[in-house]
């Protein structure tokens, strides 16, 4: 017998990399544990705010593989935010960035649209899932945390709320659009590369390759082979590190990156540009713009202020978003 205070959702189909994520598992990099959490933290935050949840509540991250689920019992208001995904629900076909209520017997399908790589499905309620080290974020390498979703399983939302007052669109802000010019702080191993290589890195267009998952994405472009022997001892890596393997191929490390590595990092993408970067797709172009460490800090602070104004407006309701 289903409890009154829950909604039960049966997964009909889930593509690869569809998993539960909360705000991440922070402060454990020293034990080899990356933060994980949403690839696009901006859209994730928008989805939670749109259904009135506190920041960081677990949601379902949906990749370009898509997700189809059936509401078996209970009614619950949901939001989909992130990318140009298509949402099919109760006979309606709409773009992501919307809030509606899923009722018992209804099907919800989320499929990729004309842009974006990740979208977030948040519910007004509490997703029940496994916690690992204090977080439900799914670590893709081990599957620990809330876990990946697969056809045949059910997801339960406890204490579901129906919020008709929130139905409607969510404005997709400029900061959630894909960004193809990435600000970087050069280093910490720029000294391992020749002047020409460094200049190639900053002036050439690169493309995202198909080697793109939650750990990182390899880029196609001119070779950035290091000019010295690769004998550095392994050291810590951050999300946004542009790591160059011995073959000269750069990779940008993302939410589930390994915490340490022995390959040199030519630069680090400023964190405030990463959410928009991950919404690019394989074969999209990307270029790098060097900024000073102080400019990076200023970018992050400006972006944080914009984000908090935006989220406050989304939390206020669907028609009050003026950004």
């Amino acid at each position: 017998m289903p409890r009154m205070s829950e909604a039960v959702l049966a997964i009909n189909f889930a593509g690869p990399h569809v998993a539960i994520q909360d705000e991440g598992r922070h402060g454990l990099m020293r034990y080899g544990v990356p933060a994980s959490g949403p690839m696009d933290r901006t859209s994730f935050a928008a989805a939670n705010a749109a259904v009135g949840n506190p920041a960081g509540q677990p949601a379902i991250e949906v990749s370009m593989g898509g997700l189809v689920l059936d509401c078996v019992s209970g009614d619950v208001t949901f939001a989909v935010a992130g990318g140009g995904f298509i949402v099919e629900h109760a006979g309606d076909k709409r773009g992501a960035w919307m809030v509606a209520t899923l009722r018992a017997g209804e099907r919800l399908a989320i499929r990729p649209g004309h842009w974006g790589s990740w979208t977030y499905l948040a519910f007004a309620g509490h997703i029940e899932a496994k916690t690992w080290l204090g977080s439900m974020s799914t670590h893709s390498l081990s599957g620990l945390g809330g876990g990946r979703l697969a056809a045949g399983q059910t997801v339960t939302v406890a204490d579901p709320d129906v919020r008709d007052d929130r139905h409607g669109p969510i404005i997709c802000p400029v900061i959630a659009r894909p960004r193809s010019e990435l600000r970087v702080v050069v280093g910490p191993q720029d000294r391992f590369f020749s002047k020409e290589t460094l200049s190639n890195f900053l002036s050439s267009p690169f493309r995202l390759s198909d080697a793109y998952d939650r750990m990182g994405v390899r880029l196609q472009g001119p070779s950035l082979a290091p000019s010295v022997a690769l004998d550095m001892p392994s050291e810590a890596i951050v999300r946004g590190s542009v790591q160059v393997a011995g073959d000269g191929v750069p990779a940008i490390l993302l939410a589930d990156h390994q915490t340490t590595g022995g390959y040199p990092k030519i630069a680090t993408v400023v964190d405030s540009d990463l959410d928009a970067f991950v919404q690019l797709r394989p074969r999209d172009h990307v270029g790098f713009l060097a900024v000073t460490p102080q400019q990076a800090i200023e970018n992050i602070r400006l972006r944080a202020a914009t984000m908090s104004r935006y989220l406050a407006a989304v939390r206020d309701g669907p028609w009050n978003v003026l950004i």
Partner: protein
Amino acid sequence: MSQDSSASSGSVPNYRPVGGHAVLVEFGTTIDRRIHDRVVKLDAALKAAPFPGFVEAVPAYASILVCFDPLVADHRTTGAAIAERLGAEIPETIGAMREVEICYDPDLAPDLAAVAEASGLSPEDVVSAHLSGDYNVFMYGFAPGYAYLAGVPKAIQQPRKPAPIRGIAAGSVLIAGPQCLVSTLTMPTGWWIIGRSPTKILDAASNDRPFLFDVGDAVRFRRISRAEFDARCLA
């Protein structure tokens, strides 16, 4: 580079900005116990007296990454806070002694014979050498709970395999060069598998003390029989 070599012997580390939210502090460029001791000391000093905006520190062989909240701190204030803590007296003892059980039975140690042959020793000599090692936790990395221990005796050191082998069981005791590691997840590895341990380095079920080691701990391996190994695994 002259700047780097002076850092390995002198007192002034290199500070390198990492994006907009971290500083990498480099004490040298080699895997060396004295250099690592300075990493561990700074790590302890940051833990004892975190500065405003401190988020986390990630110690490695010769460097430590110090992450800060860019809304509160910046690279300059973080660098200054680190400099202030470099000579700090650390009250507590750094580094506990941890014991790790290991069973060397052949089916749990598929590479023991190969390591013996390459070292010109008997498998029993390899076991004795491995047990005699003076191990320290230098860093975690690669995957959750993967603690890199340095201290494998020279006589049994082997370069890593040319290609990784997939699906190696969690708990495998692996060696490569001077390093030893007890795996915590089923993973590929190009290191040599010389035994298996029931000791949980990462206890995924525990929210209380999920990781056995801290960076800086000393580690001793204790040989156990197959019967003890099986009993531990059932426990």
